């Protein structure tokens, strides 16, 4: 049963991913991306990581895609603006790089021997609780740096966006 659900979700993710890169219309592509993200959230939920599944829906399917759609609609791209002169070269180059990447992936996956397994989160603690415990105890320090980082980015956004001339 679990396998069947996994394969259904995986096929949805792959099919939507394929649609994302093949659509000519950017809005259609973004909407397919939403479905792909939601299906990935389903995969996480199936693994028992309910917290990450919820994050996936809120952050990716929610915030990021909405932002994406806003940008696309505001820019109001015409179809011909997607055209590239060097399309043939791009495709050829992309194909070569893609093949190299697949070969590398196969090599890595086939020869991968894990040294020592990463520690799994204790399932007894429940997912969100375990996550926040890790976040605010073991990873408190990087977490605090992230907050400083967000502040810096915020200052930058204000500086870049402000139209104030003089006080």
């Amino acid at each position, binding site marked *: 049963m679990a396998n069947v659900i996994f394969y259904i979700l995986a096929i949805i993710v792959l099919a939507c991913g394929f649609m994302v890169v093949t659509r000519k219309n950017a809005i259609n592509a973004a909407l397919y991306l939403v479905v792909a993200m939601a299906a990935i959230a389903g995969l996480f939920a199936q693994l028992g990581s309910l917290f990450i599944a919820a994050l996936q829906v809120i952050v990716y399917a929610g915030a990021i895609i909405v932002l994406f759609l806003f940008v696309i609609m505001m820019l109001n791209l015409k179809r011909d603006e997607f055209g590239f002169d060097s399309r043939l070269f791009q495709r050829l180059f992309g194909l070569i790089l893609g093949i190299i990447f697949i070969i590398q992936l196969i090599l890595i996956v086939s*020869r991968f021997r894990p040294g020592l*397994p990463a520690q799994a989160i204790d399932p007894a603690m429940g997912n969100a609780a375990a996550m926040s415990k890790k976040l605010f105890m073991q990873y408190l320090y990087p977490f605090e*740096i*992230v907050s*400083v980082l967000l*502040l*810096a*980015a915020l200052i930058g956004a204000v*500086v870049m966006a402000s139209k*104030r001339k003089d006080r």
Partner: protein
Amino acid sequence: MDYSLLIPEVVLFVWALVLLLYNASAKTENPRAIGLFALIGLVAAFVILWFVPDGSLFGKTFISDTYARGFKMIFLLAAIVTVIGSVDFASKHMKHTGEFYSLIMLCVTGMMFLASAGELISLYVALELSTISLYILAAFLKKDLKSTEAGLKYLILGAASSGILLYGLSLLYGLTGSTVLDEIGYRLFLNEGTTIAAVFAIVMFVAGFGFKLAAAPFHMWAPDVYEGAPTPVTAFLSVASKAAGLVAFVRLFFNSLLAIKPEWVVIVEIVAILAMVVGNVVALLQKNIKRMLAYSSIAQVGYVLVALSAGIDLSVTSMMIFLLAYLFANIGAFIVVIAFSNATGSDNIEDYSGLWKRKPSLAIVMTIYMLSLVGIPLTGGFIAKYFLFGAAVKEGLYTLVVIAILTSVISLFYYMNVVRIMMFRPAPSADKIALPWMIKLGLAISVIMVLLIGIWPGPFYAWGQLASTIFHF
């Protein structure tokens, strides 16, 4: 836990916030006062840093050792000299000076966290804190198209390189099951032999850090960003961002990946050769002094990588001395560029002709910086190169050293070209160039330090050696 280890970083962060709030609440913007205020904060953090003891926090996530503190001094000194040199530039050309200085301070805070990072997640996050601040700073002149272009290019390419780096970090975690650097080193040592995934991760690291270092072939962004960014930001970027790349690179490679050194030495050597050749040869063709200094910085990082591929304690020692000498010579040269473009509005090397007639002191200090960048005896640059190449010779890397010396000879042409134009060409106009006292102060500090390192290298060598003691070669 001894949280006092964090005091310099906390002081700097709080100071940046206070500066921001003060600037927002002030009725009239006073760029000079804000600049001086920022300067006091940076100097305060520098002074406090001397009293911070050894130790670690959060299970080796934050490490305070001689190596980290040495690098923190470099970051703070770079920021101090940059701020001294940029007060006049900022009050002349910039809006939002409060945000400008607080972003520089936040950037330095990030670099200081990076120097102390003993674990992959905090290492990455600290690196991002410093680079995101730099993206904003590069685009700070909003009305200037070149500055905007510089910021955008830096952002997009920087984000791509961060992604590559992150992929490498995730592979390393997958291989060892730990994010703590010491632990990773230990487990790689126990595993013995390497998988192809480790090599793949190393390639990712070299590409990711190579971007931060602006080492060829990952240097494409550097000339455009250096040229377009506001000159004080370029000065800071050319030194602090390289030092930030090096601090993480060396801690990762010499602490965690030392067990698999044979796998990465060749890659680092290739990047070193490319950086030296590309940087020095292309610099010959540059007409804009900021672009020329950009290519020269690419070449300089190649010399450091020569020493690092030796992988001995002298590599670290020489890198520390090099960064200190390079810091003062390079930022000093950029302060000259600031002073000159403030007076004449030009960054072209040709326009420097006859500077000797218009402002002799400016021409003399510029000559000293150029001599130091070439590595002429009695300047800091000579001592730096002596130890850098000495480390490589000690390990028998003669090919690398020969290429380094040959390309150094090439570099003589473009550095001395600036001197030739300043000294021997007739001046286009007889106007004297006036120097504000802050610029004079910045130039004086840089010249004194460049000569001090060159004439009396003993204490600086001892300082560099102290930093290298934390690695177990």
